[in-house]
């Protein structure tokens, strides 16, 4: 187990190192960061002054190694744009994204697992059709359109939910639903197909033959097996929600990590971009690891192999 963990850790570090090099190169190769920082309308002298102040006139390898040196000594750097330490910015933005991600995933799981189970229990009935329709709609509807629809209905027309910002928990309801709905179809279809497979398996038939209640059969002997791949998928979806909620965060004006990443790329705020990358890559790695451990707990066969 220890060797397995060490292997995973080494792999994670390698992934983070490679992505950070690529991100660093992309920011530099996609244009002149000094021009982006100085802004439109800046004179050549203004741009030159920015280039010198931030050391962009030096070889890119030096600049990268300097950054790595600082990271290794525990400094995440400073945002030239927001004029704050990156660690403080992350402390502001991470809780917003974490709240959004967890609430969205909870919504997605609460909606999709019962629907998936119901669809599997009554295949080709109205329930299954409704579930399928919900899945197709979730997949097909662009998330921004769904978000704007929610905003119009609950924010403008009914006026029961706040439209933008993140000061109270009520501010997170619409963004969580909009973000979570997008993850629903995949989780639901996976639950449905997993359940259908399991319900036809020998051990479920045996359980039924023993006269166990159908509820017990479905939950204890069916869902427990069917949910294994769902856990892995949910972990990936949560990772996606943490890093990829740019559109939802920008529509509802939530100052989270996805929004921060997008804005920072626009303004070539290199140290913030690199720090977010580290955080997201680490979050993905940790979530995947947790999913594997959880799966091992749910399914003894994984533990043995």
């Amino acid at each position: 187990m220890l060797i397995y963990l060490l292997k995973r850790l080494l792999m994670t570090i390698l992934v983070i190192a490679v992505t950070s090099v690529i991100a660093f190169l992309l920011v530099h190769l996609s244009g002149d960061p000094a021009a982006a920082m100085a802004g439109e309308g800046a004179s050549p002298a203004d741009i030159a002054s920015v280039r010198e102040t931030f050391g962009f006139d030096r070889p890119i390898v030096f600049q990268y190694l300097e950054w790595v040196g600082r990271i290794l000594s525990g400094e995440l750097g400073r945002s030239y744009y927001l004029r704050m330490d990156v660690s403080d910015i992350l402390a502001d933005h991470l809780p917003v994204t974490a709240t959004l991600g967890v609430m969205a995933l909870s919504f997605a799981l609460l909606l999709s697992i019962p629907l998936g189970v119901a669809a599997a229990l009554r295949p080709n009935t109205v329930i299954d059709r409704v579930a399928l329709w919900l899945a197709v709609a979730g997949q097909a509807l662009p998330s921004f359109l769904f978000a704007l629809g929610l905003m119009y209905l609950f924010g403008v027309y009914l006026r029961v939910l706040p439209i933008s910002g993140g000061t109270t928990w009520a501010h997170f309801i619409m963004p969580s639903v909009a973000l979570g709905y997008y993850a629903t179809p995949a989780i639901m279809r996976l639950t449905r197909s997993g359940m259908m497979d399991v319900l036809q398996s020998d051990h479920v038939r045996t359980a039924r033959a023993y006269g166990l209640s159908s509820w017990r059969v479905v939950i204890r002997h069916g869902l427990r097996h069917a949910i294994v791949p769902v856990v892995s998928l949910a972990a990936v979806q949560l990772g996606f929600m943490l890093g990829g909620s740019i559109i939802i965060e920008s529509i509802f004006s939530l100052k989270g990590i996805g929004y921060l990443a997008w804005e920072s790329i626009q303004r070539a705020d290199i140290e913030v971009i690199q720090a977010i990358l580290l955080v997201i890559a680490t979050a993905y790695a940790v979530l995947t690891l947790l999913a594997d451990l959880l799966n091992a707990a749910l399914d003894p066969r994984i533990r043995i192999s």
Partner: protein
Amino acid sequence: MKSRTMLLAASLAALASTPALAGKDNDTFVWATSTEMDTPDIYYGNQREALITTYAQCDSLVYRDPKSNEVLPLLATKWEWTDDKTLEMELREGVKFHDGTDFDAEDVAYTLNHVAAPDSDMKLRVIVDWIDNVEVVAPHKIRIHAKAPTPAAFEYLGGTAPIFPSGHYDSAPEVPGADGTTRRDWGAVTPVCTGPYKLTDYQPGQSVTLEKNEDYFDGSPKGKPSIGKIVYRTIKDPETQIAELVTGGIDWMWGVPTENAAMLGDMENITVVSAATMRMSFLALDAAGRTGDNPMTNVKVRQAIAHAIDRKAITENLVGEGSAVLKSMCVPVQFGCETDVTQYDYDPEKAKALLAEAGYADGFKIPFYAYRDRPYSEAVLNYLRAVGIDGDLQFLQWRALRPLIVDDQTAIAQLTFGSNGMLDASASTGYYFQFGPDDYARDEEVRDWLGAAEKTIDEAERKELYSKALKKIADEAYYIPLFAYGRTYAFNKDLDYPVTDDEMAHFYLAKWK
């Protein structure tokens, strides 16, 4: 059942506690744009949002009245050029900064000398680059020594040059610089000023809160502030801004999309107004041959391009309310902006004839660079295609386009420029026609006229020089002016405030009806 009722009650209570901030009833005016403010210190950030905040929070030496365009005394009460490089100013007495300290000549000298220093890292150096040093003559009298005669001095000493107390930047944090060195992050210091509103809260990238300065001095041309609280919020998405405006979450937005303007205008609680801005859109053509031998070096080709584009149609149908056809390479509100220059009517036949005369009867193919508002660029390209010029659109981000411009790579580029809010023709002409890296015309005569205009104090003579330069730029069709952007504002109907043509929002003048 009981627990469900309690949960519902708790939910409703939580919803009810959501702060309903904006509006007349709370005496709180909330405005929103999609920009994240980088600093409220205008010396270290050049965003409109920072300038709007600065005008409300800070005072400068002089004030340009946005309605009459007249320069009025603010922190300086009287001034005189004692020679063509020395400006002597008497300062207002009895003024206090928001931190309670008294304002005097030391503060003016400190602020201007700090930002004018070559290593100040100031963002837009043009505002202070003309200052050699500022000398304290008496407790309320200063002398500004300019490096050269500077007729645009009052433009620079207006709203873009707020005065901070002595020692203001002492608290600037020391942050890591390049090569293991450190540098001072001057822009991280929150401004302290003397203006009609005090800054009481600043959340980087999110919000700025200003509160009425009850002790604001009498006799300021800005008048006494009326609204209690002014809050700025960043809301990225225009649709969200509209939703907030409609429901009273915010009181003001700008940049209303054309397709939403009419709908908002029909609403009872909202006023919609369009006004001009200072941002101009134009084609920069490589007349100087910087990209090598190319069709743009031929004046007939450049004139053909000017004739090929229906600027009026693009302006009216695409850019929309508030925009206007740009007649010259400057905006009319700028001093010295000559608009009586050669105009090229939309005439595709004439364009084709000119191209034939230039030896391009079959047209040609050329890369066409742009970075802002793709639909406008597509429209220009369509017009060019109709006369045989096949532009290959290279639509890039500004930071990717900028190095190409500097490296002699752009034979045709559709660019925009906002003159950094400077109401003087030198702002745009200086950038594009004085042999800087953005100058693709490289006309020595134009350069010399503009250079002379920037050093001539006599207003009539300056105007004459700008007129000559702008006329030649139009005759030679070096750059093709297209349109000045418009902007549509939508705000709470209870709000009384002047919408002006300087692309500024003078909220300190606002009051509730």
